[in-house]
């Protein structure tokens, strides 16, 4: 194969982000009736300049980027100012991902990423962008010589559209509305339009605002909730369209998903240290859960959080199955978890009062005395409403605490806003920390943290009994704690 180039239309993709400022410029023109102010001309000049810079850079990049497949390697030359020549051995190619943003799609382009196993630094060669047919051909060619062994039962999970019923139970119901409202406000702001001055809004406010508050508020709440639900479903569909979790070969777990922007994440089995079943409050109430992989080599913390998701919100049973199956564990054994000392419950209830209920009540009372008696009523109502909630949450938080050992894995459960059950490979625990403060010491509790080179790096087992914490850690990872124990080990005592 001779040296090949990227597709010319890539420049258009790079210029695509100019569409937004250009559109807002045109909108301003329409809104102001064609009168272009100084600001308008400056904007236009900025856009033109950016267009020129991007185009020139794009042309240079196109002329300097070349790739080829030789007898044994895949080579890539890049760099406008700083020349770079990289190559990967074909046999080492672990995965070839084709992704396309909506703009790429419109132009019939695809971004090709060829990655190797992380053992040699996790090198990734990116070709942005190729015509779709070329990319597919290249992918076949790259994978044809890759040294891959196929997994026996590769597919772990695929999308069921029945799961869509869990979409309204995600953060996006409220978050989505906020984000859309924020974006809309910003857009209107940019056009110098004040939404409360728009005729329709004023008419509506005049008609309902004063006279029928009892009708307006519930209707508004209902409307926002509906809007939120639609948004949440849209986000779910966009994120999880054609979702598929499978072993692409015996060593690589792959998640593919996405409608407009397709994403593919490869996780190496060697660096997969566990799984986490998450049940956020709303989702838990609806009997749903989702699953993250606890894996290394997915990038920095932010990227890891984004890329570790392996199962969308789905029925809890399905989530439990996937959480075990990605780790190759047998099904059906819900591990028996040990409870934490009773004091932990008191601490959780007290925490709710000390950090939420009491301070806010106090502030309301203070303001009430200083300003208006209405706030005094708000204060006692707030206290009466939040007190039972604090108690319930404290109890629930305590109920959710648990830890245990299940074969080769360590199990940790905790959390009330999101009940997380983490399965961690015992082998993967590379250090133990025990932390305490004067309050926890008086209660006889200590928090143990298992360090792993994956996921969130450290997983806490909160509020263990002081007397049990080290013993449990030692049961998980026998050996290295023994020499620092305060007394002879248990076997000696009998």
């Amino acid at each position: 194969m001779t040296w090949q180039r990227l597709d010319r239309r890539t420049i258009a993709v790079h210029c695509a982000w100019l569409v937004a400022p250009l559109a807002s410029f045109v909108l301003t023109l329409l809104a102001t009736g064609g009168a272009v102010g100084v600001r308008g001309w400056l904007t236009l000049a900025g856009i033109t300049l950016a267009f020129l810079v991007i185009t020139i850079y794009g042309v240079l990049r196109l002329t300097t980027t070349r790739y080829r497949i030789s007898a044994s390697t895949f080579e890539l030359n890049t760099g406008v100012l700083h020349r770079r020549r990289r190559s990967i051995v074909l046999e080492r190619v672990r995965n070839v991902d084709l992704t396309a943003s909506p703009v790429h799609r419109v132009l019939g382009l695809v971004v090709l990423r060829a990655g190797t196993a992380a053992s040699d630094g996790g090198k990734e060669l990116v070709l942005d962008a190729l015509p779709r047919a070329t990319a597919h051909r290249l992918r076949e060619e790259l994978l044809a010589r890759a040294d891959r062994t196929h997994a026996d039962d590769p597919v772990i999970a695929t999308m069921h559209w029945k799961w869509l019923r869990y979409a309204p139970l995600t953060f996006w119901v409220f978050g989505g509305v906020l984000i859309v409202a924020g974006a809309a406000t910003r857009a209107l702001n940019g056009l110098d339009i004040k939404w409360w001055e728009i005729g329709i809004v004023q008419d509506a406010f005049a008609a309902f605002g004063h006279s029928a508050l009892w009708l307006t508020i519930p209707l508004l709440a209902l409307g926002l909730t509906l809007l939120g639900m639609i948004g949440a479903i849209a986000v779910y569909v966009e994120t999880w369209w054609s979702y598929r979790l499978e072993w692409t070969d015996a060593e690589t777990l792959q998640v593919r998903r996405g409608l407009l922007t397709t994403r593919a994440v490869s996780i190496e089995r060697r660096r997969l240290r566990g799984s986490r079943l998450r049940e956020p409050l709303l989702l838990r109430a609806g009997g749903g859960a989702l699953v993250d992989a606890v894996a290394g080599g997915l990038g920095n913390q932010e990227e890891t959080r984004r890329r570790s998701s392996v199962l969308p919100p789905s029925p809890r049973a399905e989530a439990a199955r996937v959480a075990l199956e990605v780790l190759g564990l047998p099904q059906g054994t819900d591990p028996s978890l040990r409870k934490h000392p009773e004091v932990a419950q008191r601490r959780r209830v007290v925490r709710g009062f000390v950090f939420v209920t009491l301070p806010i009540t106090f502030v309301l009372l203070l303001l009430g005395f200083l300003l208006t008696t209405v706030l005094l009523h708000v204060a006692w109502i707030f206290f009466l409403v939040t007190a039972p909630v604090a108690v319930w949450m404290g109890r629930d938080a305590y109920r959710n605490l648990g830890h245990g050992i299940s074969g080769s894995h360590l199990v940790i459960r905790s959390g009330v806003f999101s009940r997380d059950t983490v399965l961690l490979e015992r082998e993967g625990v590379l250090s133990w920390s025990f932390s305490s403060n004067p309050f926890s010491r008086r209660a006889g509790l200590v928090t143990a943290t298992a360090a792993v080179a994956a996921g969130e790096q450290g997983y806490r087992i909160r509020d263990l009994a002081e007397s049990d914490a080290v013993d449990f850690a030692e049961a998980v990872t026998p050996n290295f704690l023994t020499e620092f124990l305060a007394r002879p080990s248990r076997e000696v005592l009998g």
Partner: protein
Amino acid sequence: MNLRPPVNRVDPRARRWWSAQAWVSLAGPMLLVALTMFVLSLLFFPKALVWLGPLLVAVLVLPALLYALVMPPWRYRVHAWELGSKAVYAASGWFWQKHRVTPLSRVQTVDTTQGPIQRSFGLATVVVTTASTHGDVKIAGLAAADADELARRIGEAAEVVPGDAT
């Protein structure tokens, strides 16, 4: 806790280093702010001193003094380290205390570091890193020579123990 404290204390000079650090980083600035507000109030709003004075003492002066005077000796009581046959063990913190045990087989690098204040006291910190940020061990406040010696010993011990450290 069933873990006994690590055998070796850090260098006694560490107390003075921690005080210096406390004054430079937190207590000093807090007192300065309090003083500035006091002087400004004295010059321009003398009437406000009645309530501003006690407020400044309660919110800035007392916490600053408490921190600078209590933290160093408390820290000194807690901080300790030990190099075992299979793992390195360190205790740190004061109000919030942490005991960490990291096996030598998981050690990736061992360094000594020395900040400007630390250098003036002839102290150094040994930093043992692992593949996880929650596994890293820091032993702060050792005499510089001891720190180098300890770093060398941990490095040697880690080499002897087999394993790929992940």
